[in-house]
């Protein structure tokens, strides 16, 4: 089922392309030694180079180039061994040089792609490959504040010169859901690679959203570009709003202007951005302060060798090798922190139990995705997540696998671990949180119950199999829930025989 805008005159298709600006993880700026730290005093992370003092010159930061190359490799893109920086010229108060150093003619990373997975609930019926046209490296601009003074805007250059990757998609998306999935997937890849922290609130990732509409089968319509959208939800809202606005406009006899727009999160609407109206002639040309960037094979090899297992590969391995359900595999691989915790716990549990990872993967996955988060959530502030070490959790899982504790006891023990940091085995012992597997005690309990319910025993033996559950329940109750259910089952079967 495709996403369509229902206009007064018929159905319209939405065409979406995204330019995502991702802040490269680096300590220093792209062309200067000033820090990239977030939240510093205004204009404190500004070098003479960033402030474009007369005679200042840029020298590129190797780490920024390296991270962009690794990102390119992660989206299976062509890496251009010869690239150049260009100047994009325009006048604005957040741009001290009067030009942004960017890459137009010869970007660092060429054609690549990214897979978004089918998600029926979200409205994505099947897997889809989204083309990525290029990734280039460029400088971020500074920041203007408009609400500090009645007649002045204030300029803070702290962000000015921070390295960005501009990741330009093909106009391959056709719904807000696809665009949302694209941004989430891209963010996940960037975080796996470690080239961007993906923190959208702090502006580490922003999207310029290009939207146009057309009647089914028509040529591409005129697009608008909504700048600096900083959450997945907002990206989806922009598309929704723009698509409907454009359809209304066209159906009412108007035409869509190719223009830059701004999103207002308060109202969920977009509006024309006045300040950059005449800035379309950027007079790009190669930056004469910088020579062409030529990458050596050894550099590329190092970049490739340092790439981690990526989301798609990891998800497939979880399904095919570890035998996890597609749902669990997807949940566990979505975020770096999630899979990192899972893999540590999996290794610790497998080693504690003495089995291979595959044998315990499903149990660990269930624990990691639902049991442990549930306990932590219910405890809230009472629990200290720092106590939830892989070692402690592996011990709990081992006790459970060995039949020493029940699932319920596992939760109780984990609760106490979170509250106190005590050792799980010691808790089980001291708090009596252990299953009784002692056949003598269980047998005695069963004997009493069978004696007290002779009529039901008769009925059961007469063929009323359902009563088995009754006997189990009674036995467990008598044992105060601490009997090992497997032992209870086994003994009951013998005695009812």
């Amino acid at each position: 089922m495709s996403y369509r805008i229902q206009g007064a005159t018929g159905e319209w298709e939405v065409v979406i392309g995204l330019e995502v600006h991702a802040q490269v993880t680096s300590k220093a700026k792209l062309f200067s030694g000033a820090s990239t730290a977030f939240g510093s005093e205004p204009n404190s992370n500004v070098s003479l180079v960033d402030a474009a003092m007369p005679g200042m010159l840029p020298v590129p930061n190797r780490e920024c180039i390296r991270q962009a190359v690794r990102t390119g490799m992660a989206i299976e893109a062509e890496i251009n061994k010869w690239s150049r920086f260009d100047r994009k010229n325009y006048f604005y108060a957040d741009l001290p040089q009067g030009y942004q150093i960017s890459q137009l003619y010869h970007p660092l990373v060429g054609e690549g792609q990214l897979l978004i997975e089918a998600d029926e609930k979200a409205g994505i019926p099947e897997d889809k490959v989204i083309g990525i046209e290029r990734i280039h490296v460029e400088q971020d601009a500074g920041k203007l504040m408009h609400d500090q003074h009645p007649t002045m805007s204030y300029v803070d250059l702290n962000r000015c010169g921070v390295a960005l990757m501009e990741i330009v998609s093909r106009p391959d998306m056709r719904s807000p859901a696809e665009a949302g999935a694209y941004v989430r997937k891209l963010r996940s890849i960037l975080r796996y690679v470690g080239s961007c922290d993906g923190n959208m609130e702090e502006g580490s990732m922003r999207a310029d959203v290009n939207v146009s509409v057309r009647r089914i089968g028509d040529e591409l319509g005129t697009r608008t570009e909504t700048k600096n959208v900083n959450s997945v939800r907002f990206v989806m809202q922009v598309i929704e709003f723009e698509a409907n606005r454009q359809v209304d406009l066209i159906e009412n006899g108007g035409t869509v202007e190719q223009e830059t727009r701004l999103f207002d999160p308060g109202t969920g609407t977009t509006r024309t951005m006045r300040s950059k109206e005449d800035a379309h002639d950027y007079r790009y040309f190669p930056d004469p302060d910088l020579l062409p960037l030529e990458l050596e094979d050894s550099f590329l090899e190092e970049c490739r060798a340092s790439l981690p297992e990526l989301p798609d590969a990891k998800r497939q391995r979880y399904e095919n090798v570890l035998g996890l359900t597609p749902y669990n595999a997807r949940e566990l691989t979505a975020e770096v922190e999630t899979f990192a915790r899972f893999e540590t716990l999996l290794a610790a549990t497998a080693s504690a139990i003495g089995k291979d990872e595959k044998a315990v993967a499903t149990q660990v996955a269930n624990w990691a995705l639902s049991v442990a988060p549930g306990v932590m959530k219910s405890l809230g502030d009472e629990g200290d997540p720092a106590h939830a070490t892989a070692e402690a959790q592996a011990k709990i899982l081992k006790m459970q696998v060995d039949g020493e504790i029940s699932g319920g006891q596992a939760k109780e023990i984990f609760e106490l671990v979170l509250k106190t940091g005590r050792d799980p085995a010691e808790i089980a012992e001291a708090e009596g949180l252990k299953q009784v597997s002692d056949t003598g005690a269980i047998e005695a309990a069963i004997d009493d119950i069978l004696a007290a319910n002779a009529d039901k025993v008769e009925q059961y033996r007469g063929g009323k199999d359902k009563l088995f559950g009754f006997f189990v329940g009674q036995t467990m109750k008598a044992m105060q829930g601490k009997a090992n259910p497997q032992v209870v089952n086994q003994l009951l079967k013998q005695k009812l025989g």
Partner: protein
Amino acid sequence: MTEFTQMGVADIRDGVAAGDFTAREVAESFNAQVAAAAELGAFIVTTPDKALDAADAVDAARARGEALGKMAGVPIGMKDLFATKGVQTTAASHILEGFIPPYESTVSANLWAAGAGMLGKLNMDQFAMGSSNETSHFGSVKSPWRKDGSNAALTPGGSSGGSSAAVAARLCPAATGTDTGGSIRQPAAITGITGIKPTYGRCSRWGVVAFASSLDQAGPMARSVKDCAIMLEAMAGFDPKDATSLDMEVPEWEAHLSADLSGKTIGIPREYRMDGTPQDILDSWERGKEWLKDAGAKIVDITLPHTKYALPAYYIIAPAEASSNLARYDGVRYGLRDLPEGAGLQDMYAATRAAGFGDEVKRRILIGTYVLSAGFYDAYYNQAQKIRTLVARDFEQAWSQCDLILAPTTPNSAFALDEMQGDPLAMYLNDVFAVPASLAGLPAMSVPGGLNSDGLPLGLQLIGKPFDEQGVLDAGLAIEQRSGFDAQPDKWWA
């Protein structure tokens, strides 16, 4: 009393080192000379205390028996394109008037580290754009030279016109210059001094107000080849802050100077013999050939077929780069701000830049903006960069036939101030012989080649292979030894 102001870099340095006189005496003497020459307009600001402090430091170091730097005790003039910490740096533009850099350019820092002292900041064409020093916001510089029998003020050339005038008038033994398309060589030639533009990348551009980044190179201007060699050694060197800086050791040019050119072949480019080149220029070129031959060199005719396209290509590339490099002068972070009543940000930019830039700077910014604007990039900028490749290729091919090239530096001697105002194109043609080497990034030098019939100096230009400053200096020395050039302007000022 020793006439310090007649002494050059080597003599001062050696005299100070030997204890024949103190650096302070030298500095005082030049300070007085500078103070008495205000009429030339060579300096925008003078810094006598800086010169004295540097001199005292050298004298103290000597007294302590410490090793002295390459320029120890030599007071120099600093072109106002170099940022000097705590001292106004304007590039001779109103838009930077009052700008006090909190930093020191690499080249000037290198010179101070070598023991040089600063007499002041030298006037120049605004943002180094000009060939006559008439585009300065702080007034034209007058050449110390005059035509025989005339009192008309002449140009000292440009853009390093304050430097050339000051060195020729003995206000300083040497000065820094910068050369984008002839701005060291042309003023040196028409004031009878020596100046070398090294290979692109030898001198760091960090802290030098940018005109055209792919062409700008700093270099020394002095009154002898040896002085230039000494000063260039002090200025040059790898700078990690400049991505185009050459990561090479600085050779010991002074120590290896040799006027023996046996085994060297000098190329004479046929295309530099242009229609309308005055006879006195051609005559001086002929004399240059003879002197080099006399020094043992072989002379061959060569061809540099794209020479005629070098100047127009330059007048696309340099303004294009400048239009972008000068975008930072916007009244926000430093320099002039013109904020008309009720003006918005973009109005403030337009007003500030209209009030701050001079006519020639505006002209070049407009040309540069035009040639880079939508739809014109390929026809102008890209085509010019292709021509630049061809110009560089011409030189590469010439190097299979010769080691150095000899040509005139300029197509004429000094012209009168105002003579070429209102005809920008005629002014641009002054650099016709200088620009090809700039486009190819090659080391090139101007040495005096004698006086013309009006009693005005003419320069001879030597162009070398990349990194072969030594070859250029050696040939310059051979000419210097044979020309016997010792003319100096009569002191009509003060």
